[in-house]
C-alpha cells in the first residue's frame, strides 16, 4: 500500500509537474483558440469582416516574429549609441530590403495600397522628437506592443501615453494656434473645407491644411520625372531608394561597429576583400533570431499589402469605411465616410484613434479636427481594423512568450512609469508631426519608393543620439545619488 501511495503520489506529482511544465503552452494555445473563435464569430456576423480579420492575423504573425527576434526599431538606433551593438540595425536593414523586394512585386501586380508621404521639415523634426522619446520608453511603437505581450506593463503604459498624446496633439488649440505662421491660416482658409472641420482653428489643422497639403508626396521615380514602368519600380524605387541605401548602411555598420571585433575573433590583422565580405555576412547572421525575424517581417509586410489590395478589388472598395457602411456601421466614420485603413503595417494612427475615441466618449470635441473628422474617423475600437492589428501584435507576442516561458508580468516603478509616459508623449508628438512612426513614416515608405522615410530615419538617429546622451547622464546622476552601488 505504501509503495502504491508513493507511486500514486509520484503520479500526482508527475501530473502536477506536467501541468506546471505545460501551463504556459496551454495559455498560449488558449490565446490562439480565442483569436480563432473570435474570427469565426466575426465571420458569422458578416463574412465581410474578413477584411478586418486580415489585419488581426497579420498582427498576430507580426507579434510572433517581433517577439522571436526581439525586434524593436528603437534598439536599432539606441543600442548603436548606448552599447555599440549593431544587431538590431542590421535586422532592420534586412527587413527593409526584403519588404522592398516584395513591395515591388505588389506594385507591379497593381495591388499596392501605398501613397507617398509629403516631404518637408516636419519629417525630420518628427523623427528627432520620436527618436528622442523612444530611448526612454524602451521600445518603438511596435516594440512596445510586443513587449506588452510579454507582460511588460511599462510598455502598456507607453501605448497608453502614445495614444492619448496623439489624440490631444491633433485636436489641441487655444494658445498653440498663435504659434503657427499666419501663412498657414491663410492657406488653410483657402482650402474651402466644410465648416464643421473648423480648419482655421486648432494648430494641427492649420499645420495639416496650411502646410502639409501644400507639399508634394512623391516616390523617387516620380520626383526624378521617370515615367511609371517596370524599370521605374524595380530600378529607381526599389534599387536606388531602398536596396542601395541598405547596402551602404550595412557597410557603414560593419566598418564602424563590427569589423574591429571580427578582426579580433578571426585572429587576422589584415583582411582581403573576400574576408571583408565574409565579415559582413557574419554581422548579418550574428543574431540569427533577429535576422530571421527581419526577413520574415519584410516578407509578411509585403504580403499584407498584397492581400489587402486583392480584398479591396474583390469588394470593390478603396477604404474599409465603405465596407462598414455597407454592413450598417456608420458611427465614427469621417465626413468622407472613411476610416483609417492603410492596407499595410502601421501603428500609431490607430493608437491615436483609441485615445481619441475615449476622449470623444468623455465629451471632448474630436471630430471637428481634420485628423479624425476628415481623414481617419473615430470608429468603435471593436470595428477598428488597424487597431486589431495592434492587438494582434500583443496577442501574437504573448503566445510566443508564453510558449517559450518568457512571459512575465512586469510592473512599472515610479522611474520607469515616468519614462514610459514622458517618452510616450514625445513619441506621440513626433509621430503626428512626421505623419507616422518608425513603421508608417520609415519602414513602409522607404520600401515603397518614398525617400521621405530616410529623412525620418535621419531625424530618428539624431533624436536617438541626444536621447542616449540624456539617458546616460540620468543614469550617472542616479548612481551617484545612490552612492554605494559601486558602478
Amino acid at each position, binding site marked *: 500500500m505504501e509503495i502504491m501511495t508513493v507511486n500514486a503520489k509520484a503520479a500526482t506529482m508527475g501530473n502536477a509537474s506536467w501541468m506546471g511544465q505545460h501551463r504556459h503552452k496551454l495559455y498560449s494555445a488558449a490565446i490562439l483558440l480565442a483569436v480563432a473563435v473570435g474570427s469565426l464569430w466575426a465571420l458569422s456576423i458578416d463574412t465581410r469582416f474578413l477584411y478586418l480579420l486580415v489585419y488581426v492575423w497579420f498582427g498576430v504573425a507580426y507579434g510572433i516574429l517581433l517577439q522571436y527576434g526581439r525586434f524593436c526599431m528603437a534598439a536599432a538606433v539606441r543600442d548603436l549609441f*548606448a552599447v555599440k551593438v549593431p544587431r538590431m540595425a542590421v535586422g532592420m536593414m534586412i527587413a527593409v530590403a526584403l519588404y522592398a523586394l516584395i513591395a515591388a512585386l505588389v506594385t507591379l501586380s497593381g495591388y499596392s495600397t501605398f501613397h507617398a508621404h509629403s516631404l518637408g521639415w516636419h519629417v525630420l523634426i518628427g523623427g528627432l522628437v520620436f527618436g528622442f522619446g523612444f530611448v526612454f520608453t524602451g521600445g518603438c511603437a511596435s516594440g512596445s506592443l510586443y513587449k506588452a505581450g510579454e507582460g511588460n506593463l511599462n510598455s502598456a503604459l507607453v501605448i497608453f501615453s502614445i495614444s492619448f498624446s496623439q489624440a490631444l496633439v491633433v485636436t489641441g488649440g487655444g494658445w498653440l494656434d498663435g504659434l503657427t505662421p499666419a501663412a498657414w491660416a491663410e492657406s488653410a482658409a483657402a482650402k474651402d473645407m466644410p465648416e464643421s472641420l473648423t480648419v482655421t482653428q486648432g494648430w494641427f489643422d492649420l499645420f495639416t491644411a496650411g502646410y502639409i497639403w501644400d507639399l508634394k508626396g512623391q516616390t523617387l521615380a516620380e520626383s526624378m520625372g521617370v515615367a511609371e514602368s517596370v524599370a521605374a519600380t524595380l530600378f529607381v524605387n526599389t534599387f536606388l531608394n531602398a536596396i542601395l541605401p541598405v547596402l551602404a548602411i550595412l557597410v557603414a555598420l560593419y566598418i564602424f561597429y563590427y569589423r574591429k571585433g571580427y578582426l579580433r575573433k578571426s585572429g587576422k590583422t589584415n583582411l582581403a576583400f573576400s574576408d571583408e565580405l565574409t565579415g559582413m555576412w557574419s554581422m548579418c547572421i550574428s543574431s540569427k533570431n533577429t535576422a530571421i525575424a527581419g526577413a520574415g517581417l519584410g516578407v509578411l509586410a509585403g504580403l499584407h499589402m498584397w492581400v489587402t489590395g486583392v480584398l479591396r478589388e474583390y469588394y470593390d472598395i478603396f477604404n474599409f469605411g465603405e465596407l462598414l457602411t455597407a454592413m450598417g456601421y456608420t458611427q465614427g466614420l469621417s465626413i468622407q465616410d472613411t476610416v483609417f485603413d492603410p492596407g499595410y503595417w502601421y501603428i500609431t494612427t490607430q493608437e491615436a484613434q483609441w485615445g481619441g475615441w475615449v476622449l470623444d466618449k468623455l465629451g471632448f470635441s474630436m471630430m471637428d479636427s481634420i485628423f479624425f473628422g476628415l481623414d481617419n474617423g473615430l470608429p468603435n475600437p471593436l470595428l477598428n481594423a488597424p487597431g486589431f492589428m495592434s492587438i494582434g501584435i500583443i496577442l501574437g507576442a504573448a503566445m510566443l512568450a508564453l510558449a517559450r516561458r518568457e512571459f512575465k508580468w512586469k510592473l512599472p516603478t515610479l522611474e520607469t512609469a515616468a519614462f514610459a509616459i514622458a517618452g510616450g508623449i514625445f513619441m506621440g508628438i513626433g509621430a503626428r508631426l512626421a505623419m507616422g512612426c518608425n513603421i508608417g513614416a520609415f519602414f513602409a515608405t522607404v520600401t515603397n519608393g518614398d525617400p521621405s522615410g530616410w529623412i525620418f530615419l535621419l531625424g530618428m538617429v539624431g533624436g536617438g543620439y541626444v536621447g542616449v546622451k540624456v539617458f546616460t547622464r540620468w543614469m550617472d546622476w542616479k548612481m551617484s545619488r545612490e552612492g554605494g552601488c559601486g558602478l
Partner: protein
Amino acid sequence: MAMSFQQTGDGEWRLDVTGYSCPHPQMYTKKALQKLESGNVLTLVFDNPSSGESIVAMCESEGNDVFERDDEGGNFVWKIRKT
C-alpha cells in the same frame, strides 16, 4: 525594485537589474563589465528578454565570454567572464 551591483567573492561580481526594461539592463551591464578586471566573473540577473540579445552581441564584440546561461521562466541568470 532597484539595481544592485556587488562583489560576491574574489573576482566575482553580481549585477541584478531585475524589473528593468531596455535600455537599462544592457547599459548597466556595460558599465559593470568596464569596472571588472580581466578574468573576473559577472553574474548577471535580468528579466527583460530583448536586453539579452544586445548583451550577447556586446560581449561577442568585446570578446567577453557568456559561459553559463539559465533562462528559465522569464528570469535570466548569466555568467560572463571578462577577457
